[in-house]
Protein backbone atom coordinates (compact mmCIF):
# COMPACT_ATOMS: atom_id res chain seq x y z
CA UNK A 1 0.00 0.00 0.00
CA UNK A 2 2.81 2.42 1.01
CA UNK A 3 4.76 1.49 -2.10
CA UNK A 4 1.71 2.28 -4.21
CA UNK A 5 1.31 5.63 -2.46
CA UNK A 6 5.03 6.35 -3.05
CA UNK A 7 4.68 5.55 -6.74
CA UNK A 8 1.66 7.83 -7.07
CA UNK A 9 3.59 10.61 -5.34
CA UNK A 10 6.54 10.13 -7.68
CA UNK A 11 4.23 10.08 -10.71
CA UNK A 12 2.57 13.28 -9.55
CA UNK A 13 5.93 14.98 -9.08
CA UNK A 14 6.92 13.95 -12.60
CA UNK A 15 3.61 15.19 -13.97
CA UNK A 16 4.04 18.54 -12.20
CA UNK A 17 7.60 18.89 -13.43
CA UNK A 18 6.59 18.05 -17.01
CA UNK A 19 3.84 20.68 -17.01
CA UNK A 20 6.23 23.25 -15.51
CA UNK A 21 8.80 22.55 -18.24
CA UNK A 22 6.19 22.83 -21.00
CA UNK A 23 4.91 26.15 -19.62
CA UNK A 24 8.48 27.46 -19.21
CA UNK A 25 9.16 26.59 -22.85
CA UNK A 26 6.04 28.51 -23.87
CA UNK A 27 7.34 31.52 -21.93
CA UNK A 28 10.79 31.28 -23.56
CA UNK A 29 9.21 30.91 -27.00
CA UNK A 30 7.04 33.99 -26.52
CA UNK A 31 10.02 35.99 -25.28
CA UNK A 32 12.27 34.75 -28.07
CA UNK A 33 9.58 35.29 -30.68
CA UNK A 34 9.08 38.93 -29.70
CA UNK A 35 12.76 39.83 -29.59
CA UNK A 36 13.59 37.84 -32.72
CA UNK A 37 10.64 39.23 -34.68
CA UNK A 38 11.73 42.78 -33.93
CA UNK A 39 15.39 41.97 -34.57
CA UNK A 40 14.57 40.71 -38.06
CA UNK A 41 12.32 43.71 -38.63
CA UNK A 42 15.15 45.99 -37.52
Amino acid at each position, binding site marked *: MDEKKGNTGEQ*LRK*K*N*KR*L*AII*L*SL*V*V*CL*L*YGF*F*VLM*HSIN*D
Partner: protein
Amino acid sequence: MSTLAHDDHHDHKPTGFKRWFFSTNHKDIGTLYLIFALIMFFVGGAMAMIIRAELFQPGLQFVDPQFYNSMVTVHALVMIFGAVMPAGVGLANWMIPLMIGAPDMALPRMNNMSFWILPFAFALLLSTLFMDGGAPAGGWTMYPPLVLQTGNAFPFLIFAVHFLGISSIMGAINIIATVFNMRAPGMTLMKMPLFVWTWVITSFLLIASMPVLAGGVTMLLTDKYFGTSFFDAAGGGDPVLFQHVFWFFGHPEVYILALPAFGVVSQIIPTFSRKPLFGYASMVYATASIAILSFFVWAHHMFTVGLPIKGELFFMYATMLIAVPTGVKVFNWIATMWKGSMTFETPMLFAIAFVILFTIGGFSGLMLGITPVDFQYHDTYFVVAHFHYVLLTGAIFALMGAAYYWLPKWTGFMYDERLGKIHFWLSLISSNVLFFPQHFLGLAGMPRRIPDYNIQFADFNMISSIGGFAYGISQLLFVYIVIKCAMGGKKAKALSWEGAKGLEWSVPSPAPFHTFETPPKLTKEMLEH
Protein backbone atom coordinates in the same frame (compact mmCIF):
# COMPACT_ATOMS: atom_id res chain seq x y z
CA MET B 1 -14.41 17.10 8.22
CA SER B 2 -12.60 13.77 7.99
CA THR B 3 -9.28 15.58 7.65
CA LEU B 4 -9.66 17.48 10.89
CA ALA B 5 -8.47 14.78 13.31
CA HIS B 6 -5.77 13.67 10.93
CA ASP B 7 -4.26 17.14 10.58
CA ASP B 8 -4.17 17.75 14.31
CA HIS B 9 -1.59 15.00 14.80
CA HIS B 10 0.81 16.21 12.13
CA ASP B 11 1.26 19.87 12.92
CA HIS B 12 5.06 19.87 13.27
CA LYS B 13 6.96 22.68 11.60
CA PRO B 14 10.47 24.13 11.40
CA THR B 15 11.18 27.25 13.43
CA GLY B 16 13.02 30.56 13.14
CA PHE B 17 15.05 31.71 10.16
CA LYS B 18 14.92 28.28 8.51
CA ARG B 19 11.14 28.18 8.60
CA TRP B 20 10.76 31.38 6.61
CA PHE B 21 13.86 31.53 4.42
CA PHE B 22 13.79 27.92 3.21
CA SER B 23 10.05 27.47 3.44
CA THR B 24 8.30 25.22 0.97
CA ASN B 25 5.00 25.37 2.83
CA HIS B 26 2.25 27.11 0.87
CA LYS B 27 0.79 28.77 3.96
CA ASP B 28 4.12 30.21 5.12
CA ILE B 29 4.97 31.41 1.62
CA GLY B 30 1.48 32.90 1.36
CA THR B 31 2.07 34.74 4.64
CA LEU B 32 5.44 36.01 3.36
CA TYR B 33 3.80 37.30 0.18
CA LEU B 34 1.05 39.04 2.14
CA ILE B 35 3.45 40.70 4.59
CA PHE B 36 5.72 41.78 1.73
CA ALA B 37 2.71 43.21 -0.14
CA LEU B 38 1.60 45.15 2.95
CA ILE B 39 5.09 46.64 3.41
CA MET B 40 5.21 47.63 -0.26
CA PHE B 41 1.68 49.09 0.05
CA PHE B 42 3.06 51.48 2.66
CA VAL B 43 6.26 52.22 0.68
CA GLY B 44 4.17 53.04 -2.42
CA GLY B 45 1.68 54.86 -0.18
CA ALA B 46 4.44 57.07 1.26
CA MET B 47 5.34 58.06 -2.31
CA ALA B 48 1.67 58.86 -2.98
CA MET B 49 1.68 61.08 0.11
CA ILE B 50 4.66 63.00 -1.31
CA ILE B 51 2.78 63.43 -4.60
CA ARG B 52 -0.37 64.66 -2.85
CA ALA B 53 1.63 66.97 -0.53
CA GLU B 54 3.27 68.55 -3.58
CA LEU B 55 -0.12 68.96 -5.29
CA PHE B 56 -1.81 70.35 -2.19
CA GLN B 57 -1.27 73.84 -3.55
CA PRO B 58 -0.21 75.23 -6.94
CA GLY B 59 3.48 76.05 -7.33
CA LEU B 60 6.45 73.97 -6.28
CA GLN B 61 6.29 73.25 -2.54
CA PHE B 62 8.46 70.39 -1.30
CA VAL B 63 10.24 68.48 -4.08
CA ASP B 64 11.90 69.33 -7.37
CA PRO B 65 10.14 68.23 -10.58
CA GLN B 66 12.64 65.45 -11.31
CA PHE B 67 12.06 63.85 -7.90
CA TYR B 68 8.30 64.34 -8.29
CA ASN B 69 8.41 62.38 -11.56
CA SER B 70 10.49 59.69 -9.85
CA MET B 71 7.80 59.43 -7.18
CA VAL B 72 5.07 59.07 -9.80
CA THR B 73 7.08 56.37 -11.62
CA VAL B 74 8.22 54.34 -8.62
CA HIS B 75 4.85 54.65 -6.83
CA ALA B 76 3.21 52.90 -9.79
CA LEU B 77 5.86 50.18 -10.08
CA VAL B 78 5.80 49.50 -6.34
CA MET B 79 2.01 49.41 -6.10
CA ILE B 80 1.50 47.22 -9.17
CA PHE B 81 4.43 44.79 -8.90
CA GLY B 82 5.10 45.05 -5.16
CA ALA B 83 1.70 45.42 -3.53
CA VAL B 84 -1.30 44.29 -5.61
CA MET B 85 0.30 41.39 -7.53
CA PRO B 86 2.12 39.82 -4.54
CA ALA B 87 -1.00 40.25 -2.38
CA GLY B 88 -2.98 38.30 -4.98
CA VAL B 89 -0.29 35.61 -5.19
CA GLY B 90 -0.22 35.47 -1.38
CA LEU B 91 -3.96 34.79 -1.29
CA ALA B 92 -3.55 32.20 -4.05
CA ASN B 93 -0.79 30.45 -2.14
CA TRP B 94 -2.77 30.35 1.05
CA MET B 95 -6.16 29.46 -0.32
CA ILE B 96 -5.88 27.49 -3.57
CA PRO B 97 -4.48 24.28 -2.02
CA LEU B 98 -7.06 24.56 0.78
CA MET B 99 -9.88 25.15 -1.70
CA ILE B 100 -9.07 22.24 -4.00
CA GLY B 101 -7.95 19.76 -1.33
CA ALA B 102 -4.24 19.69 -2.27
CA PRO B 103 -1.53 19.11 0.37
CA ASP B 104 0.60 21.98 -0.98
CA MET B 105 1.49 23.79 -4.20
CA ALA B 106 2.69 21.51 -7.01
CA LEU B 107 6.23 22.91 -7.08
CA PRO B 108 7.06 24.00 -3.52
CA ARG B 109 10.74 24.85 -4.04
CA MET B 110 9.94 26.99 -7.05
CA ASN B 111 7.30 28.63 -4.88
CA ASN B 112 10.01 29.61 -2.38
CA MET B 113 12.19 30.99 -5.15
CA SER B 114 9.42 33.01 -6.76
CA PHE B 115 8.81 34.77 -3.45
CA TRP B 116 12.44 35.40 -2.49
CA ILE B 117 13.20 36.98 -5.89
CA LEU B 118 10.82 39.80 -4.97
CA PRO B 119 12.79 41.45 -2.11
CA PHE B 120 15.93 41.39 -4.28
CA ALA B 121 14.09 42.88 -7.25
CA PHE B 122 12.72 45.68 -5.10
CA ALA B 123 16.13 46.23 -3.49
CA LEU B 124 17.41 46.86 -7.03
CA LEU B 125 14.53 49.18 -7.89
CA LEU B 126 14.42 51.15 -4.63
CA SER B 127 18.23 51.50 -4.48
CA THR B 128 17.90 53.84 -7.47
CA LEU B 129 16.34 56.44 -5.14
CA PHE B 130 19.83 56.95 -3.67
CA MET B 131 21.75 57.08 -6.94
CA ASP B 132 23.28 59.97 -8.83
CA GLY B 133 20.62 61.15 -11.26
CA GLY B 134 17.86 59.73 -9.07
CA ALA B 135 15.31 57.00 -9.59
CA PRO B 136 13.62 56.35 -12.96
CA ALA B 137 11.34 59.29 -13.74
CA GLY B 138 9.94 58.51 -17.19
CA GLY B 139 6.69 56.95 -15.95
CA TRP B 140 6.01 53.27 -15.19
CA THR B 141 5.27 52.78 -18.89
CA MET B 142 8.99 53.35 -19.63
CA TYR B 143 8.35 54.99 -23.02
CA PRO B 144 11.44 55.67 -25.12
CA PRO B 145 13.08 58.02 -25.89
CA LEU B 146 12.32 59.61 -22.49
CA VAL B 147 13.23 56.54 -20.44
CA LEU B 148 16.58 56.27 -22.24
CA GLN B 149 17.55 59.56 -20.58
CA THR B 150 17.51 57.78 -17.19
CA GLY B 151 20.97 57.83 -15.61
CA ASN B 152 22.62 55.07 -13.61
CA ALA B 153 19.20 53.85 -12.51
CA PHE B 154 18.32 52.54 -15.98
CA PRO B 155 19.88 49.04 -15.87
CA PHE B 156 18.58 48.62 -12.31
CA LEU B 157 15.07 49.39 -13.53
CA ILE B 158 15.38 46.93 -16.42
CA PHE B 159 16.75 44.10 -14.28
CA ALA B 160 14.21 44.75 -11.54
CA VAL B 161 11.41 44.43 -14.12
CA HIS B 162 12.98 41.21 -15.46
CA PHE B 163 13.19 39.71 -11.98
CA LEU B 164 9.62 40.71 -11.18
CA GLY B 165 8.51 39.09 -14.42
CA ILE B 166 10.42 35.88 -13.65
CA SER B 167 8.88 35.75 -10.19
CA SER B 168 5.36 36.23 -11.57
CA ILE B 169 5.87 33.61 -14.29
CA MET B 170 7.12 31.04 -11.77
CA GLY B 171 4.13 31.80 -9.55
CA ALA B 172 1.78 31.38 -12.52
CA ILE B 173 3.33 28.05 -13.58
CA ASN B 174 2.97 26.81 -10.02
CA ILE B 175 -0.69 27.75 -9.81
CA ILE B 176 -1.51 26.09 -13.15
CA ALA B 177 0.33 22.89 -12.18
CA THR B 178 -1.37 22.86 -8.77
CA VAL B 179 -4.87 23.30 -10.12
CA PHE B 180 -4.48 20.89 -13.03
CA ASN B 181 -2.63 18.12 -11.20
CA MET B 182 -3.39 18.37 -7.49
CA ARG B 183 -7.17 18.61 -7.15
CA ALA B 184 -8.83 16.21 -4.72
CA PRO B 185 -10.84 13.40 -6.32
CA GLY B 186 -14.30 14.74 -7.19
CA MET B 187 -13.14 18.36 -7.45
CA THR B 188 -13.79 18.76 -11.17
CA LEU B 189 -12.87 22.01 -12.91
CA MET B 190 -16.47 23.24 -12.96
CA LYS B 191 -16.84 22.53 -9.25
CA MET B 192 -13.84 24.64 -8.24
CA PRO B 193 -14.48 27.83 -6.26
CA LEU B 194 -14.49 30.89 -8.51
CA PHE B 195 -11.41 32.31 -6.77
CA VAL B 196 -9.44 29.31 -8.07
CA TRP B 197 -10.85 29.79 -11.57
CA THR B 198 -9.91 33.48 -11.65
CA TRP B 199 -6.37 32.57 -10.61
CA VAL B 200 -5.99 29.87 -13.28
CA ILE B 201 -7.07 32.36 -15.93
CA THR B 202 -4.82 35.07 -14.44
CA SER B 203 -1.89 32.63 -14.55
CA PHE B 204 -2.39 32.08 -18.28
CA LEU B 205 -2.53 35.86 -18.75
CA LEU B 206 0.77 36.15 -16.89
CA ILE B 207 2.42 33.46 -18.99
CA ALA B 208 1.28 35.07 -22.22
CA SER B 209 1.97 38.71 -21.35
CA MET B 210 5.04 38.82 -19.09
CA PRO B 211 7.50 37.53 -21.75
CA VAL B 212 6.33 40.38 -24.00
CA LEU B 213 7.21 42.95 -21.33
CA ALA B 214 10.54 41.19 -20.83
CA GLY B 215 11.16 41.32 -24.59
CA GLY B 216 10.30 45.02 -24.68
CA VAL B 217 12.58 46.02 -21.81
CA THR B 218 15.42 43.84 -23.16
CA MET B 219 15.16 45.79 -26.40
CA LEU B 220 15.28 49.04 -24.41
CA LEU B 221 18.44 47.79 -22.73
CA THR B 222 20.11 46.89 -26.03
CA ASP B 223 19.03 50.24 -27.50
CA LYS B 224 20.77 52.06 -24.67
CA TYR B 225 23.93 49.99 -24.26
CA PHE B 226 24.46 47.75 -27.29
CA GLY B 227 23.91 50.02 -30.27
CA THR B 228 20.58 48.66 -31.52
CA SER B 229 17.84 51.02 -32.59
CA PHE B 230 14.58 49.16 -32.11
CA PHE B 231 12.91 52.30 -30.79
CA ASP B 232 15.28 54.95 -32.09
CA ALA B 233 13.92 56.81 -35.14
CA ALA B 234 17.41 58.09 -35.99
CA GLY B 235 18.58 54.52 -36.53
CA GLY B 236 15.51 53.43 -38.47
CA GLY B 237 13.54 52.26 -35.42
CA ASP B 238 10.18 53.42 -34.13
CA PRO B 239 9.44 54.67 -30.60
CA VAL B 240 5.73 53.88 -31.10
CA LEU B 241 6.68 50.21 -31.51
CA PHE B 242 7.61 50.16 -27.81
CA GLN B 243 4.15 51.47 -26.93
CA HIS B 244 2.59 48.58 -28.88
CA VAL B 245 4.85 46.03 -27.16
CA PHE B 246 4.34 47.58 -23.73
CA TRP B 247 0.54 47.77 -23.93
CA PHE B 248 0.28 44.27 -25.38
CA PHE B 249 1.57 43.36 -21.93
CA GLY B 250 0.03 46.34 -20.12
CA HIS B 251 -3.62 45.77 -20.82
CA PRO B 252 -3.68 42.09 -19.82
CA GLU B 253 -1.74 43.29 -16.74
CA VAL B 254 -4.79 45.34 -15.74
CA TYR B 255 -6.79 42.10 -15.67
CA ILE B 256 -3.97 40.29 -13.88
CA LEU B 257 -4.65 42.80 -11.09
CA ALA B 258 -8.44 42.74 -11.42
CA LEU B 259 -9.37 39.07 -11.99
CA PRO B 260 -8.17 37.76 -8.59
CA ALA B 261 -10.21 40.63 -7.07
CA PHE B 262 -13.26 39.33 -8.99
CA GLY B 263 -12.52 35.90 -7.54
CA VAL B 264 -12.39 37.20 -3.98
CA VAL B 265 -15.66 39.09 -4.35
CA SER B 266 -17.26 35.96 -5.82
CA GLN B 267 -16.35 34.12 -2.60
CA ILE B 268 -17.40 36.85 -0.16
CA ILE B 269 -20.80 37.87 -1.61
CA PRO B 270 -22.38 34.36 -1.55
CA THR B 271 -21.13 33.81 2.02
CA PHE B 272 -22.76 36.93 3.44
CA SER B 273 -25.84 36.65 1.20
CA ARG B 274 -26.25 33.02 2.33
CA LYS B 275 -26.96 31.99 -1.25
CA PRO B 276 -24.92 30.15 -3.86
CA LEU B 277 -23.20 32.34 -6.43
CA PHE B 278 -25.70 33.25 -9.16
CA GLY B 279 -24.67 31.98 -12.60
CA TYR B 280 -21.48 30.12 -11.67
CA ALA B 281 -20.80 28.82 -15.18
CA SER B 282 -21.46 32.22 -16.77
CA MET B 283 -18.99 33.73 -14.27
CA VAL B 284 -16.29 31.28 -15.43
CA TYR B 285 -17.00 32.00 -19.10
CA ALA B 286 -17.17 35.76 -18.49
CA THR B 287 -13.77 35.67 -16.74
CA ALA B 288 -12.25 33.70 -19.63
CA SER B 289 -13.84 36.08 -22.17
CA ILE B 290 -12.42 39.12 -20.38
CA ALA B 291 -8.98 37.48 -20.38
CA ILE B 292 -9.10 36.66 -24.10
CA LEU B 293 -10.46 40.08 -25.08
CA SER B 294 -7.74 41.78 -23.02
CA PHE B 295 -5.23 40.79 -25.73
CA PHE B 296 -7.14 42.66 -28.45
CA VAL B 297 -7.60 46.10 -26.96
CA TRP B 298 -4.08 47.31 -26.17
CA ALA B 299 -4.03 50.25 -28.59
CA HIS B 300 -6.83 52.06 -26.74
CA HIS B 301 -3.95 53.33 -24.57
CA MET B 302 -2.41 54.95 -27.65
CA PHE B 303 -5.27 56.53 -29.59
CA THR B 304 -3.44 59.87 -29.69
CA VAL B 305 -0.20 58.60 -31.29
CA GLY B 306 -1.72 58.69 -34.75
CA LEU B 307 -3.08 55.21 -35.49
CA PRO B 308 -4.88 54.54 -38.78
CA ILE B 309 -8.60 55.29 -38.43
CA LYS B 310 -9.52 51.62 -39.05
CA GLY B 311 -7.20 50.60 -36.24
CA GLU B 312 -8.76 53.16 -33.90
CA LEU B 313 -12.25 51.90 -34.76
CA PHE B 314 -11.23 48.27 -34.20
CA PHE B 315 -9.69 48.98 -30.80
CA MET B 316 -12.61 51.17 -29.77
CA TYR B 317 -15.21 48.49 -30.55
CA ALA B 318 -13.09 45.72 -29.03
CA THR B 319 -12.82 47.79 -25.86
CA MET B 320 -16.59 48.31 -25.74
CA LEU B 321 -16.98 44.54 -26.05
CA ILE B 322 -15.21 43.94 -22.71
CA ALA B 323 -18.11 45.70 -20.99
CA VAL B 324 -20.34 42.71 -21.88
CA PRO B 325 -18.63 39.95 -19.82
CA THR B 326 -17.83 42.51 -17.11
CA GLY B 327 -21.52 43.41 -17.00
CA VAL B 328 -22.38 39.70 -16.70
CA LYS B 329 -20.20 39.53 -13.59
CA VAL B 330 -21.62 42.68 -12.00
CA PHE B 331 -25.22 41.55 -12.60
CA ASN B 332 -24.41 38.08 -11.23
CA TRP B 333 -23.02 39.58 -8.02
CA ILE B 334 -26.15 41.70 -7.67
CA ALA B 335 -28.38 38.69 -8.43
CA THR B 336 -26.51 36.71 -5.77
CA MET B 337 -27.40 39.37 -3.20
CA TRP B 338 -31.00 39.61 -4.44
CA LYS B 339 -33.36 38.21 -1.79
CA GLY B 340 -30.42 36.83 0.15
CA SER B 341 -30.25 36.87 3.96
CA MET B 342 -27.58 39.52 3.84
CA THR B 343 -25.41 40.62 6.74
CA PHE B 344 -22.83 43.34 6.52
CA GLU B 345 -19.61 42.21 8.17
CA THR B 346 -16.42 44.01 7.07
CA PRO B 347 -15.53 41.66 4.17
CA MET B 348 -19.05 42.09 2.75
CA LEU B 349 -18.84 45.88 3.08
CA PHE B 350 -15.60 45.88 1.11
CA ALA B 351 -17.11 43.53 -1.49
CA ILE B 352 -20.22 45.68 -1.99
CA ALA B 353 -18.07 48.82 -2.20
CA PHE B 354 -15.96 46.99 -4.77
CA VAL B 355 -18.96 46.22 -6.96
CA ILE B 356 -20.15 49.84 -6.93
CA LEU B 357 -16.80 51.61 -7.20
CA PHE B 358 -15.23 49.20 -9.68
CA THR B 359 -18.28 49.78 -11.87
CA ILE B 360 -17.69 53.55 -11.66
CA GLY B 361 -14.08 52.90 -12.72
CA GLY B 362 -15.38 50.67 -15.51
CA PHE B 363 -17.73 53.35 -16.80
CA SER B 364 -15.00 56.01 -16.87
CA GLY B 365 -12.92 53.37 -18.69
CA LEU B 366 -15.67 53.06 -21.30
CA MET B 367 -15.59 56.85 -21.73
CA LEU B 368 -11.83 56.68 -22.27
CA GLY B 369 -12.29 53.81 -24.74
CA ILE B 370 -14.29 56.04 -27.10
CA THR B 371 -11.62 57.31 -29.49
CA PRO B 372 -12.74 60.92 -30.04
CA VAL B 373 -13.49 61.35 -26.34
CA ASP B 374 -10.06 59.95 -25.45
CA PHE B 375 -8.45 62.68 -27.55
CA GLN B 376 -9.86 65.12 -25.00
CA TYR B 377 -9.13 63.10 -21.83
CA HIS B 378 -5.80 61.51 -22.72
CA ASP B 379 -3.01 62.20 -20.20
CA THR B 380 -5.32 64.21 -17.94
CA TYR B 381 -6.32 63.59 -14.33
CA PHE B 382 -9.48 61.89 -15.64
CA VAL B 383 -7.28 58.90 -16.51
CA VAL B 384 -5.70 59.02 -13.05
CA ALA B 385 -9.16 59.01 -11.46
CA HIS B 386 -10.27 56.13 -13.73
CA PHE B 387 -7.45 53.70 -12.99
CA HIS B 388 -7.41 54.49 -9.28
CA TYR B 389 -11.11 53.63 -9.07
CA VAL B 390 -10.28 50.33 -10.79
CA LEU B 391 -7.14 49.57 -8.82
CA LEU B 392 -7.64 51.14 -5.39
CA THR B 393 -11.38 51.07 -4.76
CA GLY B 394 -11.41 48.00 -7.01
CA ALA B 395 -8.47 45.65 -6.54
CA ILE B 396 -7.22 46.91 -3.17
CA PHE B 397 -10.71 47.04 -1.63
CA ALA B 398 -11.21 43.41 -2.70
CA LEU B 399 -7.82 42.46 -1.24
CA MET B 400 -8.73 44.18 2.04
CA GLY B 401 -12.05 42.30 2.02
CA ALA B 402 -10.14 39.06 1.40
CA ALA B 403 -7.83 39.75 4.34
CA TYR B 404 -10.79 40.26 6.70
CA TYR B 405 -12.61 37.24 5.23
CA TRP B 406 -9.75 34.78 5.66
CA LEU B 407 -7.99 36.28 8.73
CA PRO B 408 -9.90 33.89 11.05
CA LYS B 409 -8.66 30.93 8.97
CA TRP B 410 -5.09 32.23 8.96
CA THR B 411 -4.77 33.32 12.59
CA GLY B 412 -7.38 31.23 14.41
CA PHE B 413 -8.92 34.41 15.88
CA MET B 414 -11.76 36.70 14.83
CA TYR B 415 -10.66 40.28 14.08
CA ASP B 416 -12.24 43.23 15.88
CA GLU B 417 -15.43 43.74 13.85
CA ARG B 418 -16.06 47.27 15.19
CA LEU B 419 -12.57 48.43 14.19
CA GLY B 420 -12.91 46.63 10.85
CA LYS B 421 -16.07 48.59 10.08
CA ILE B 422 -14.41 51.87 11.13
CA HIS B 423 -11.52 51.02 8.80
CA PHE B 424 -13.96 50.33 5.97
CA TRP B 425 -15.92 53.57 6.33
CA LEU B 426 -12.75 55.66 6.68
CA SER B 427 -11.29 53.98 3.57
CA LEU B 428 -14.52 54.39 1.60
CA ILE B 429 -15.04 58.07 2.37
CA SER B 430 -11.39 59.11 2.10
CA SER B 431 -10.73 57.26 -1.17
CA ASN B 432 -13.74 58.94 -2.79
CA VAL B 433 -12.68 62.35 -1.48
CA LEU B 434 -9.26 61.53 -2.92
CA PHE B 435 -10.23 60.35 -6.40
CA PHE B 436 -13.69 61.65 -7.30
CA PRO B 437 -12.58 65.32 -7.68
CA GLN B 438 -9.83 64.13 -10.02
CA HIS B 439 -12.53 63.40 -12.63
CA PHE B 440 -13.43 67.11 -12.62
CA LEU B 441 -9.75 68.11 -12.74
CA GLY B 442 -9.22 65.91 -15.77
CA LEU B 443 -12.35 67.12 -17.55
CA ALA B 444 -11.14 70.70 -16.97
CA GLY B 445 -7.83 69.77 -18.59
CA MET B 446 -5.33 69.28 -15.75
CA PRO B 447 -2.46 67.17 -17.13
CA ARG B 448 -1.06 64.20 -15.17
CA ARG B 449 2.61 63.72 -14.14
CA ILE B 450 3.21 67.48 -13.65
CA PRO B 451 4.13 68.83 -10.17
CA ASP B 452 2.65 72.30 -10.72
CA TYR B 453 -0.73 73.39 -12.07
CA ASN B 454 -2.86 76.34 -13.01
CA ILE B 455 -4.55 78.14 -10.12
CA GLN B 456 -8.00 77.17 -11.45
CA PHE B 457 -7.31 73.58 -10.30
CA ALA B 458 -6.38 74.56 -6.72
CA ASP B 459 -9.60 73.75 -4.84
CA PHE B 460 -10.16 70.24 -6.19
CA ASN B 461 -6.48 69.42 -5.68
CA MET B 462 -6.64 70.51 -2.06
CA ILE B 463 -9.75 68.35 -1.47
CA SER B 464 -8.05 65.44 -3.23
CA SER B 465 -4.92 65.78 -1.09
CA ILE B 466 -6.95 65.88 2.13
CA GLY B 467 -8.66 62.66 1.02
CA GLY B 468 -5.23 61.18 0.24
CA PHE B 469 -3.80 61.94 3.67
CA ALA B 470 -6.96 60.59 5.35
CA TYR B 471 -6.79 57.38 3.31
CA GLY B 472 -3.09 56.94 4.12
CA ILE B 473 -3.59 57.41 7.85
CA SER B 474 -6.66 55.15 7.97
CA GLN B 475 -4.63 52.26 6.55
CA LEU B 476 -2.54 52.26 9.75
CA LEU B 477 -5.73 51.10 11.46
CA PHE B 478 -5.71 48.04 9.17
CA VAL B 479 -2.21 47.11 10.35
CA TYR B 480 -3.35 47.50 13.98
CA ILE B 481 -6.41 45.29 13.36
CA VAL B 482 -4.32 42.56 11.69
CA ILE B 483 -1.67 42.56 14.45
CA LYS B 484 -4.37 42.58 17.16
CA CYS B 485 -6.09 39.65 15.45
CA ALA B 486 -2.84 37.67 15.08
CA MET B 487 -2.06 38.21 18.79
CA GLY B 488 -5.37 36.83 20.03
CA GLY B 489 -9.05 37.52 20.49
CA LYS B 490 -12.25 35.54 20.10
CA LYS B 491 -11.40 32.02 18.90
CA ALA B 492 -12.45 31.35 15.33
CA LYS B 493 -14.34 28.16 14.48
CA ALA B 494 -13.38 25.97 11.52
CA LEU B 495 -16.45 27.40 9.78
CA SER B 496 -15.67 31.00 10.66
CA TRP B 497 -18.61 32.48 8.75
CA GLU B 498 -22.05 30.95 9.09
CA GLY B 499 -22.84 31.16 5.37
CA ALA B 500 -19.43 30.03 4.08
CA LYS B 501 -19.19 26.94 1.88
CA GLY B 502 -16.16 25.13 0.53
CA LEU B 503 -13.32 22.87 1.48
CA GLU B 504 -11.19 25.55 3.15
CA TRP B 505 -13.77 25.85 5.93
CA SER B 506 -13.52 22.12 6.74
CA VAL B 507 -10.02 22.47 8.23
CA PRO B 508 -9.56 23.91 11.72
CA SER B 509 -8.81 27.60 12.34
CA PRO B 510 -5.94 28.39 12.25
CA ALA B 511 -5.31 26.03 9.35
CA PRO B 512 -2.75 23.42 10.49
CA PHE B 513 0.77 23.55 9.04
CA HIS B 514 -0.01 20.47 6.93
CA THR B 515 -3.45 19.91 5.45
CA PHE B 516 -4.98 17.30 3.17
CA GLU B 517 -1.98 14.95 3.29
CA THR B 518 -4.53 12.34 2.36
CA PRO B 519 -7.09 13.56 -0.18
CA PRO B 520 -10.31 14.72 1.51
CA LYS B 521 -13.68 13.12 0.86
CA LEU B 522 -15.81 15.77 -0.72
CA THR B 523 -19.41 16.19 0.36
CA LYS B 524 -22.11 17.82 -1.71
CA GLU B 525 -22.21 20.75 0.71
CA MET B 526 -18.51 21.47 0.22
CA LEU B 527 -19.02 21.83 -3.52
CA GLU B 528 -22.03 24.13 -3.23
CA HIS B 529 -20.74 27.52 -4.25
